[in-house]
Structure formats: C-alpha cells, structure tokens
C-alpha cells in the first residue's frame, strides 16, 4: 500500500524545476515508479494543502553504470510535474534532504 511519503520521493530541485515553479505554478517531484497521476495528485493535495489542476508524468530509465568489468543500472524513476490551480499559494520545498 503506497503512503503519501512513498508516493512522493523527493522534490526535484534543479534549474528547470525551479523555473517551472515560477513560470507555470508547477511543482516537480520524483515519485514512485508505480505511482499513478491520481495518487500523485492526492499526495500533493494532502501534504501541501493545495489544489492540484493537472499532473504530467515522465518515466526515466536508469542509466547504465560500470564498475570495471561489472555493469549495472541505476534505478528507473518517474518524474511528476504537478500544476496547481490558479491562485494557489506556492508552497516551499523543504530543502534538507
């Protein structure tokens, strides 16, 4: 059973992530790969007490990593762009991860 915190893994704090936050009222998270848009929406609404307008998701395949002759993959992950409804106050990410 996914909980709120297993659904939202962490905020994506990058130049792009902060840029869409300012320009499009959109929060960006790394979310559980199995999470659906609906789950993400519910999680964000519950945690940040805001209304979500739309969720877009993107799957990223883990990159290959080599260590000598051994090769493996970084885990796959899913990114979610969560657009808030117009007029919602933008919450701050907690930046102590």
């Amino acid at each position, binding site marked *: 059973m996914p909980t709120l915190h297993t659904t939202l893994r962490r905020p*994506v*704090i*990058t*130049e792009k*992530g*902060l840029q869409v936050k300012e320009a499009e009222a959109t929060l960006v998270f790394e979310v559980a790969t199995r999470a659906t848009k609906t789950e993400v929406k519910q999680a964000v609404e519950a945690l940040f007490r805001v209304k979500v307008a739309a969720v877009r998701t993107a799957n990223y395949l883990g990159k290959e990593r080599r260590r000598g002759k051994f090769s493996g993959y970084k885990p796959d992950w899913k990114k979610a762009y969560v657009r808030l409804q117009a007029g919602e106050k933008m919450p701050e990410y907690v*930046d102590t991860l």
Partner: protein
Amino acid sequence: MNPECTRSVEVEVPAAEVSSAFRGAIKKYTRQARIPGFRAGKVPPTLIRSRFSEQIRQEVVEQLLPQHFRSAIEAAGTQPISQPQVTELHLDEGEPLRFKAQFEVLPAIDLTGYEEVRVERERAELTEEEFEAEMDRVRDSRSTVEPVTEARELVDGDLAQITFQGEVTGGEQEAGAGVRIDEPIAGQDVSLEVGGKNTLPAFSEALRGSRPGQELRFEVSYPADFGEPRLAGKSIAYQVEVKGIKRKHSPELNDEFAKELGSYETMDEFKAKLREHMTADKSRQAEAATKDKVLEALAERYPFPVPETLVQQQVEVRLDRGLRALAAQGMPQEQMRNLDFERLRLAQRDQAVGEVQGTMLLDRIAELEKVEVSDAELDRELEILSVQTREPLQALRDRLIKEDALPRVREQIRREKTGSLLYERLGA
C-alpha cells in the same frame, strides 16, 4: 580578564549596511557554489541562503565586526591590548547589527613623585673567599687523575676505586613518600675521594688506611634528612672491596700554568684578569638586583591593576623558555608532552605577574622621561644580536623587518635604557 582593566563598547551597525554585507556574501557563495541540478553561478539566491546560512552569517560577522569594533574603540579613545570578547551578538538580515565587546586596556599608572623613591644599591664586592673558590675551580678543572701504582695505604685526598654492596639492616623499611628500595644498593668501580666533602664521613673513615685488594665491612646510618630518599633514615651494612687508588694531580699555580690557560704571561696576570672579570660580573648582578628592587619598590608604592592578557602572554613566554631549556638538557619529546601544563602555568604565574608589572612600570617611566631609542642605538643592538645568533647583520635585519620585530627590539632597548636611568637616579 582583570576586571579593573576591562573596558567594553557597545556597537550598532545600521540595517542598510548589514543588508549589503549579506548581499555581498550571498553573491560570493553564488559564484562558488556547485549544487547538482544547477549550472555554476545559476543557483537562485533563496537556495544559496538556505544552504549556506551559517557560512553567510559568519562571513557577515567577520566583515562587519572588526571594522566597526575598530572605529568604536577609536571613537571611545581606548587602546585594547587583548582580543575583544564579543557578547550579545544580534544579527539578522535587514536589522541593525548589535554587539558588546569586552577587552583589556593598559591601566593608567600614576607615578606622581616617583623620583623621590630611593632604593639602596646592592653592593658588589668580590670577597677573597669567592676569588679563592673560583681559583680552586679553575685548578680543579685542569687537574688530572692518575692511578697510583705503588701498593700503599689510602690517605686523605686519594680517590678510592671501590666496588660495593649494601644491605638494609635497620631504620624504617618503608621510607617516606612511598619510596621503596627496589634496586639493590651496589656499585662497581666507583671513585670516592677519601676525606672529600662529597664523601660520607663514615666511608672516609672506613677507607682511610686500607690497601688495594682489601675487603671491608662496615655499617652506615643515614640521617633521616639524607639527600637521597632511598637511603634516608636507614642503616645499611656495606661490603666494600678496594680495587685501586687514584690520585688527583692539580697543576701548580705558576706562570707555566697561566700560559696554558690562555694568552697570559704570568700567574699574576691571570689572577688580575680573573679578578677583573669576576668583579665586573658581580657588579652586573648587583645592578640587575638593584633594578629589580627599584621596580618592586615602585610597584609597592604605586599599586596598579595588571591586565590578565599580558600575564598570560608572559606565562607562555616563560613556559616556552623552560621547555626549551628542558629540551636542551635532552628531555625526550614524549616525556614533555606528558608534563602537567596546567600546574606549570600556575607555578609561573606569580613571577609572570612581577615581570609584567616591571615592564609596565618601565614603559610608563620611559614615557614620562621621554626616553627615546635612536637609530644608532638600534643598529648597535642589532650588531650584538647578529654576533650572538651568528647571523649576518643584513640577513638578521631583513628577517626582523619581515617579522615586524624591529619595534619590539626597540621597545626592549628602551626598557633597558629606562632601567639604567632608574638605577642612576633612584639608587642610593
């Protein structure tokens, strides 16, 4: 800190200046910060602020505090001699910066009428005994020890070579302060001067008249206050074998010997020179002692608070000197590290206070008397130093300039001059 020498200032820095300092610090960190997800220099200020809040605060404090502290003390017209201790620091972005700083200052020393102080000069006269003792020492240092081959009885003045073994027979078994006899009392091929002043009379008596090869048994009771705690207050039965006799040959005090001692023609010449040296030494000591007495008298008559900072510095100087001396005597490093530094510091304290008092008095009097050190005097001192340290004059000078130590040398000369002045004026 000595409360009597402590001053404090309260400083307030306007909010605008605080904000601009914050902006500057943030800008600096923006340029340096490498945060994943951002290109260098593109990290937004809000993120910088939260990531580096501690460093930024510190940067702002380091930038504003010394600068405003300096102008504050200038405005107050005081001269701190210690690092300020900052308390009640209030710093928030967009608000004025406030802090209190405590520091020590030199006390004002009022020496009104000090010229009237009189101190009796220490007399420096070379006594005949002192001279004779020195002559004996010189003679002793040149004497040779030679074995006596003829088999004769030991007489006073002989060096008896003995091998001995001792056994405790009486007295307290357990000596004071937990000293136990673990090692056996024994020695091989020890030289003892029969009838000499460093030899126990009991030994001298037993040895006198014996011959090489002879074995002696006798008992010695040591007094309770004997110098060697292992033996104090005990009776010990000794078994001693006399191995041989040696005799010390002291050179005759003739012109021949004088020539050996250096570039002297006659014994009388050497004696005259030695007497001269010793007299000069004595009067130097007396002068130094008198100067100390003058300063003591002044300190007593004009008591003033002594800043703790200077005392601590002096304690460190003394400690450093002491450790160097120990190192020169060959104390190993690890043993030094195990010394009880707290106790050593405490032990140095009283003397350090006295020394600081002395220099403070000298500085004050130098000021009153307008004692100046000319460049020529500085040059002369440097020349002496260069000879002492075996450093070429120019190299020494360059080094001192680089270390910014010339003012200290100058200060030192000034103190010496002032000391001599006091000696001349106040000595009676």
